[in-house]
C-alpha cells in the first residue's frame, strides 16, 4: 500500500515495456475507447494464478455495469472463445457495443492468410500478381 515508486518500477516488466498497469478494473475502464477481454484459461487455475472462477468474475468480469464506465461509444472486443459468466457477461458479449463476432471473423481470415503464406503460397501469389 505504501511501497516506494522505485520498488514498483523494478518489479513490473510490463511497465518497463511502456504499458500502464491497473489492477482495479473500474479505474482502468474510465474513459476507455476499446475494452478487450481475453479467455480465462481454466486449466491454468491449478497453478495458483487465481482463487476461483466465482471470485474472478466478481473482480474482473466484464459486466454491463462496468462497460458503462467506458466511453459511450466504446467497443468491446474478445478474441473468443468466451467463457460467459467468467470473464464476460452474456449481455455484454451479445450487446450493441460488442464487435466480437467481426473480430473472430477477421481472425479466421488472418489465420488463413498466415497459414497460406507459411505453406509457400506467398511466392505463387506474388508471381500471379506480377504476370497479371
Amino acid at each position: 500500500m505504501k511501497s516506494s515508486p522505485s520498488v514498483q518500477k523494478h518489479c513490473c516488466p510490463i511497465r518497463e515495456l511502456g504499458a500502464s498497469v491497473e489492477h482495479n478494473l473500474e479505474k482502468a475502464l474510465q474513459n476507455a475507447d476499446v475494452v478487450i477481454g481475453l479467455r480465462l484459461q481454466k486449466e491454468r487455475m491449478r497453478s495458483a494464478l487465481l482463487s476461483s472462477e466465482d471470485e474472478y468474475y466478481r473482480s474482473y468480469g466484464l459486466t454491463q455495469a462496468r462497460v458503462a464506465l467506458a466511453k459511450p461509444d466504446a467497443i468491446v472486443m474478445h478474441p473468443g472463445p468466451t467463457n460467459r459468466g467468467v470473464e464476460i457477461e452474456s449481455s455484454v458479449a451479445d450487446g450493441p457495443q460488442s464487435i466480437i463476432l467481426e473480430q473472430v471473423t477477421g481472425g479466421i481470415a488472418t489465420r488463413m492468410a498466415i497459414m497460406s503464406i507459411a505453406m509457400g503460397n506467398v511466392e505463387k501469389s506474388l508471381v500471379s500478381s506480377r504476370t497479371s
Partner: protein
Amino acid sequence: MHTLISNCRFIDPSSDTISTGSIGFSGGVITSTGPASPQQPDNTIDAGGKLVIPGLIDCFARLREPGFEKLATISSETNAALHSGITTLMCSPDTDPITDEPAIVELIKRRALAGSGIKVLPIGAATMGQNGEQLGELRTLADSGCIAFSNGDYPITNTQVLRRLMEYSSGFGLKLIIAPQDPWLSDGVAHEGTVSTRLGLRAIPAAAETVALSQLIELCYQTGASVHFSRLSSHRGVQLVSQAKKDNINITADVGIDHLFLTEMDTSEFDSLCHTSPPFRARSDLEALREGVASGVIDAICSNHAPHETDSKLAPFPESLPGTSALDSFLALLFKLGNESDIALPTLIARASAGPADCFDLPQGRLNTGSPADLVIVDDECDWDFDHQHMRSQGKNSPYQGWSFQAKAKQVFVDGNEIALT
C-alpha cells in the same frame, strides 16, 4: 451523551509521554484529551489518578472456534482479552472449518457479537483449506470482513504459490500475515543452542526464521506486496527486517509478547509450557527483539495466543503441543516490561495499539480526536500474582504461574460503551 474520564493520567501513542488531565468522548468517538474538557459532560467518571490507555489491539491470536470448542471458544477468549484491555483482536484462520469462505467469517463475527463485546477481526485463509497450493478467495473474504490473510501456522512451501499470492493480494491492496519459518529447518521443538544440546531436544536453528525471511523479503521486493511478518524470534531476523525497511520494501513486523520475556533457559527443566513455535531463543535474541520494539523496527506486539487443553501439555516436552495461553497475561506483561526494561511504557503501549493499527489501517488504537473511543482505565499500582485458576481463557497453558504483576484493567470502553468486566 458526552462522557468525561477525569482526573486521569493518559498515554497518547503519538507522543512518548504520560500526560495528566481528562479524556472526553461522545457518539463513540474521542472528542477531547488534555488538561481540561472544552465542554460540559453529561457523565463524569473520576479515574482517581489511574492511567488511561487506548484499547489494545492484538494482531494475532487463536480463538479455536469454530471446530475446537473443547480447547477454547470465542466467548471465553474474548473475555480473557477484554480483561487484558484488548478491545480489538485479530483471529487466526486455523479453525475447523478453516476461515476460507464468507460463511465462516460471518459465523465468527456473530459469535463475537454475542461474546464479550470487543472487536474481533477475522484473518482469512491465504490458501484454500490452508493447503498452500490454491489461492484463497481473498477479495471475497475481504468483502466479508477479513482484515488480512494468512496461512496461520502452516508455511506455504511452494515459492511459486507464494509469489502468486503476493501478486494477487497486492493487486487488491490486501495485506498478508506470514510467520517466517522454513518448514524443513523448523522440524524441531527447541531453539538450537546450549539448552537443546544439553537436553537432547530436536533443535530449530535461528536460520529456520532467517532463511524464510530472506526468501520472503525478496519476493516482497519483486511483487510490491504488503506483508506483515508475524512472531519474529531471532536477533538476525530483526536485522533482516530492519534492512528491508531501509530498502523501502513494504513490510511490517510483530513479536509475540512471550518472546520478550522468556528464553531457551526457561525450557531447561523440560517445561512443556515453554514449548512454543517459534521457540524461545537465546538471551541475545530476546535483547534484540526488545531493541526492535524500542526502535520501531518491530511495529507491533501480539499475544500469539494458543490455548490448549491441559493434557496437551502433560506429554513429554517433544510430544507436547507448542504455544502458550497468552491473553490473560498480556496487559500485565506490557507494564512489567515497562518497569523492568529500558523501553518506555508509552512506547510499549504504542506497539500494542497505534502500531498494529498502522500496520492494518485501523482507525482505533489512538487517543486522537475523532478516533473510536476504545479506552482502558488501568490500575498500574496493584500487586497481584498470576494464578492459573483465575485465568479467563479456557486454555490454562500459561508459563507465568506465580509471577508478580502490578497492572490490571479496571474499566474498558468499546466505541464509548463501557463493557462490564465479569
